[in-house]
């Protein structure tokens, strides 16, 4: 039973699958990637503002909910702070557990809550003014 939360500067690095528990049969990884267009206009990337430590606390609580309410075993959350160029990863959620139904349900619930409650804000950086 593990919940790990990390806010990282800039785009998230590629990772390999974390070690899962011996009874885990299912791992779902979700990655949010910065898209080329924001409201139809080309951007060079997004800048993320994170209200710490409230964001980390809430992510940790959501992770604990997955374990207690959905029965999963591992939750790993990473979110970027600062500038993330188009095509790069700004958010990653890994959920592992015994069966696929629970990890899929848990991951989707987590992301819905994140997008509703967790104090993180993105701000588009227009393509011409981009740093990336």
């Amino acid at each position, binding site marked *: 039973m593990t919940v790990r939360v990390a806010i990282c500067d800039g785009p998230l690095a590629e990772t390999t699958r974390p070690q899962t528990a011996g009874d885990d049969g299912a791992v779902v990884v979700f990655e949010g990637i910065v898209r080329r267009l924001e409201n139809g206009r080309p951007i060079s990337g997004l800048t993320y503002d994170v*209200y710490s430590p*409230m964001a980390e*606390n809430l992510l940790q609580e959501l992770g604990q909910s997955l374990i207690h309410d959905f029965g999963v075993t591992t939750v790993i959350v990473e979110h970027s702070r600062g500038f993330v160029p188009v095509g790069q990863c700004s958010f990653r959620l890994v959920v592992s557990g015994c069966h696929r139904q629970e990890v899929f349900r848990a991951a989707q619930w987590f992301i819905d809550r994140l*997008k509703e409650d967790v*104090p993180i*804000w*993105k701000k588009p950086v227009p393509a011409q003014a981009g740093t990336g």
Partner: protein
Amino acid sequence: MEQVDQRQQKTCESLRVFLFGAEATLLGTSEIFVPAEEGIRTVRDLRSWLAGRYTELRPLMSQIRVAVNHRFAADDTPLGPNDEIALIGKVSGG
């Protein structure tokens, strides 16, 4: 003693409110100081004061939540100068 402390707070200390996202952009600042004289004692007081003082925030007030010490706080939560207060408008992480 209690009363003295209370009077000192009232005259010397203000509340500090952090802003993010659309609210920070709209007001052009990431923090607001609320003078002690305004007599803000609860989250409810703060919301009324903000809506009165910053008319441009009014359309957003319905989706703004107030966090006190890194937790979403109900309207009757008391506020003091040592509390970390933040307005949490529409978030956009993920």
